[in-house]
């Protein structure tokens, strides 16, 4: 019995320590010195987009499961297919558990990336990956909430490309922003980060 109490005490201490560390990093003195650089939680976001099947989607579509979200555009020759391939590899490694993970590619180039375009593009990668597009002001709203940036860069002959935040945003099932996975971050770092975000959900569900 004493042992159980001891374990409970240690557990409670650990929980308080974790909460303290969380507060320290997010709101406390340890918070990022550049305020506003950290993504808002999904619960504080408002946006309305369309998925690859033409369905309306918003933050509520993501909350309830852990989520991987990233920005890109289908006219991108290097970064976006690399990110999509990397993510496909991470999902393969995570295996069947990945079915509980929202994985969403959001275009920053809605003028060219229609619902049909997104549907075709994501079909070449892991089946779990969704492709969302929408009105320019809605794309701007979600990027702003994520503290992500993008800009159009005019090239020759009327062609243009997009500079954009290339990392992958990771949220837990409650919609809390957990961390980012950098562009082309090695799989051995990326997969444990995802697993950690997925674990948060299990812990919460059990408590």
């Amino acid at each position, binding site marked *: 019995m004493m042992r159980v109490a001891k374990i409970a005490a240690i557990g409670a201490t650990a929980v308080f320590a974790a909460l303290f560390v969380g507060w320290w990093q997010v709101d406390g003195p340890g918070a990022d010195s550049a305020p506003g650089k950290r993504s808002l939680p999904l619960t504080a976001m408002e946006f309305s987009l369309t998925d690859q099947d033409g369905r309306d989607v918003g933050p509520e579509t993501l909350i309830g499961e852990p989520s991987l979200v990233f920005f890109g555009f289908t*006219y991108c*020759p*290097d970064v976006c297919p*690399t990110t999509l*391939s990397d993510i496909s590899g991470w999902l393969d490694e995570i295996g069947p558990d990945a079915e509980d993970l929202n994985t969403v590619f959001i275009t920053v180039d809605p003028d060219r990336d229609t619902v049909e375009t997104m549907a075709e593009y994501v079909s070449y990668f892991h089946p779990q990956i969704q492709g969302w597009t929408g009105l320019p002001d809605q794309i701007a709203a979600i990027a702003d909430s994520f503290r992500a940036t993008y800009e159009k860069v005019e090239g020759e002959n009327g062609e243009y490309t997009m500079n954009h935040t290339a990392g992958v945003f990771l949220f837990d099932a409650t919609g809390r922003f957990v961390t980012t996975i950098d*562009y082309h971050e090695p799989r051995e770092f990326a997969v444990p980060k995802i697993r950690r975000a997925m674990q948060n959900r299990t812990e919460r569900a059990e408590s």
Partner: protein
Amino acid sequence: MFKTFAKAIQSLSVALLMGLPMASSAQQLSENASIVVESPWARASLGMSRPGGAYLTVRNEGSEPISLIGLRAEISGMASIHETRTNSDGVSIMAPADNIVIPPGGMFALEPGGYHAMLMQLQSPLVEGETFPLTLLFSDRTELEITVPVLGIGARGPEG
């Protein structure tokens, strides 16, 4: 030993010339054999409106530095080398890279996450399983034509 190796390379080159999509250990040599191109591959394109991307490794086996100054490809109205850089805010930016110096014994890799051959204005789509010729232009006026196999859109490297 060397003979076997040379022969292997030769047969690989022949295979590539015949258009077989093999990428893994493919080597293609310049005439004076001081420039070796390995593992070329491209991602399949979605139609022709989007720029294509290709990757390869160039090794300088000569005794002088060489500069890779550009690309030419019939399949592309405008082929060039681009570098993807990610700034401190995590924003990725593509910038042209037009003079890449490779020291003697050195190598230079175009690979996902770094440099890539950007194939703008595609004249025909890059179809998985097919190949296309790509010419590398060097500062000493060497022009090296290689055969690039097209892999799937989701390919991660020369092995697919």
